[in-house]
């Protein structure tokens, strides 16, 4: 029998997951980081059209929240959603191909950065509308309950969405109908340039859970284990049929809101302070400290991630563009209606 006292001092993630699962989690965090850097680099080279919203610095929230999900479980994501896709096992080549506007991309070049989805893996898609995914996640939870699939939906959204009507309507409906959905707010302190202090009446967004009679918890979103502990408990609760929860992961985006952001609303000191709390460094240390990986093993994961991203970009670059004459394809399932 393990010593209960000692057990309490070991972080939740180490207790809950196998070394292989934890190594895989760190691999995904590296993949997200390298993916975002690769996307940024491709953007700089003019290979990517439009804009993109990078999640560098938020990797622990994305990967940690999805630890207890299977492919049957659903997520809805946000405009800052690349990390969620990776956490939900997306194919990185198809992601890059989408960024490059290629026919082989997840959305066949029709969606771009803000609309990556992978229904087969339970990823119902990122969303270009702040708060757009919240009611949809509740609908997915309604389906799961009605069809008895046992699936749970994690609804990712940012601090900006918590002031949208859709947030309040969705939490209320989910609670009234006791639906298996976990609302995960990735509070990275700014909705574009407007800080939560200036936009949100409550101190913690999780405080709003009280209004909808559901549990609310605020955790350090850069601490993989803390995120996992809070979200896993909420997922388990949802699976038991006890209804929704609201988890707030406090985190920070290192980059600007989008590629057009000049960072006029925050200080260099604040940014470098948060960069000092790199979730990947923390996760690496956690795994090394508990003898799950060596420093070399961590370095090898990083090198491996770089290679995966390189291959993905090569696949995307070599892929064909969509045909212009097919631009109205997929507006309807039966195509005559698009005439």
């Amino acid at each position, binding site marked *: 029998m393990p010593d209960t006292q000692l057990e309490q001092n070991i972080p939740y993630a180490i207790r809950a997951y196998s070394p292989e699962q934890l190594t895989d989690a760190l691999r995904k965090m590296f993949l997200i980081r390298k993916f975002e850097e690769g996307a940024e680099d491709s953007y700089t080279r003019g290979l990517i059209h439009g804009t993109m919203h990078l999640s560098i610095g938020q990797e622990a929230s994305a990967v940690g929240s999805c630890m207890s999900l299977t492919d049957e479980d659903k997520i809805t994501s946000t405009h800052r959603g690349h990390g969620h896709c990776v956490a939900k096992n997306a194919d990185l080549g198809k992601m890059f191909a989408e960024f490059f506007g290629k026919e082989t991309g997840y*959305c066949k070049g029709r969606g771009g950065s803000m609309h990556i989805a992978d229904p087969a893996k339970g990823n*119902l898609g990122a969303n270009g509308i702040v708060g757009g995914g919240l*009611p*949809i996640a509740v*609908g997915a939870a*309604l*389906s799961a309950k009605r069809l008895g699939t046992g699936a749970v939906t994690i609804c990712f959204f940012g601090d900006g969405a918590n002031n949208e009507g859709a947030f309040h309507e*969705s939490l209320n409906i989910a609670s009234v109908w006791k639906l298996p959905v976990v609302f995960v707010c990735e509070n990275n302190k700014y909705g574009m340039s407007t800080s939560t202090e200036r936009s949100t009446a409550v101190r913690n967004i999780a405080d709003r859970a009280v209004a909808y009679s559901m549990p609310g918890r605020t955790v350090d979103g850069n601490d993989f284990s803390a995120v996992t502990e809070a979200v896993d408990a909420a997922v388990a609760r949802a699976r038991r049929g006890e209804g929704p929860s609201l988890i707030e992961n406090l985190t920070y985006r290192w980059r600007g809101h989008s590629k057009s952001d000049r960072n006029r609303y925050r200080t260099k000191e604040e940014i470098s302070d948060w960069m000092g709390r790199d979730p990947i460094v923390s996760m690496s240390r956690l795994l090394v400290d508990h003898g799950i990986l060596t420093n070399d093993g961590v370095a090898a994961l990083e090198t491996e991630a770089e290679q995966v991203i390189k291959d993905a970009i090569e696949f995307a670059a070599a892929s064909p563009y969509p045909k212009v004459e097919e631009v109205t394809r997929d507006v309807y399932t039966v195509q005559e209606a698009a005439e």
Partner: protein
Amino acid sequence: MNAHTPTALRELSYAEAIREAMDLAMAADDRVILMGEDIGVYGGAFQVTGDLVHKYGTDRVMDTPISELGGAGVAVGAALTGLRPIFEFQFSDFAALAMEQIVNQAAKVRYMLGGAVSVPLVMRFPSGSGTGAAAQHSQSLEAWLGHVPGLKVVQPSTPEDVKGMLLAALEDPDPVMIFEHKILYKMKGHVPEGYYTTPIGKAAIRRAGKDVSIVATSIMVHKALAAAEQLAGEGIDAEVIDLRTVRPMDHETVLASVRKTGRLVCVYEGVKTLGVGAEISAMVAESDAFDFLDAPIVRLGGAECPVPYNPELEKAVVPQTPDIVEAVKNVVKGRI
């Protein structure tokens, strides 16, 4: 299966026909659920869902909170993940609260995701004027949604069609928006028994004629038919086409009629400017049927103001039978 004439045709009201369609669909398919405000024991603001909650329970006839955006979005999410929701707006006007989910999500998800998913969603919109409910409860907003690729928008005008089109909408893998004129709910008409579908995207010729084509939608079909009867007494033979579907629009039926008659009058209750009639007119003007036009095209639509409360004013802002008679005479007799 020799031909036989049924002795008495079964009649139902428009609302009963909708309820029968929903009942049939729910009995046949557990995935079909109803969502909306006060559609349970209350029976719906217009008593369309009626007592279905007693038959199917609150798990399948779901009263939503007064949360149009949230409710509509839940329906979108449910449709994406295996259910076949029928979402009722209490009044079509309240769709304004849910436009985000209808226009940005339901209509676009399939396209944005490169065809990876479909949104088999049915939404019902009690619409139109004539109830004295004034500006925020009387609008005809079908042209708003008709402007959005990815949606299908229908306006059944008869009990038979509303049942068939609702069942067709449920069979359709894409979101179908059904605009139901509130004044039609009590209208009775023949409704075939059992399951059948009425195609989306096909207009119906309600009255054949050779002098002028009247293309009408929803309740205006009945006003146009009444006008056509009056006109027949004056020697004008009007063809009345019930457009039935705003998107995708049945071009061919309209064009064939215009080629035959050479004259076109569009009648619709939505605001005239940028409305359904504008689309019909432009479609005809762009087509080969242009060469057959023998008079300017005329649109009769809603006035350029909100729907007023006073009953006389309310009548004045939407086309009425005498307006149609007058407009057709002007067109046929070359007065304009």
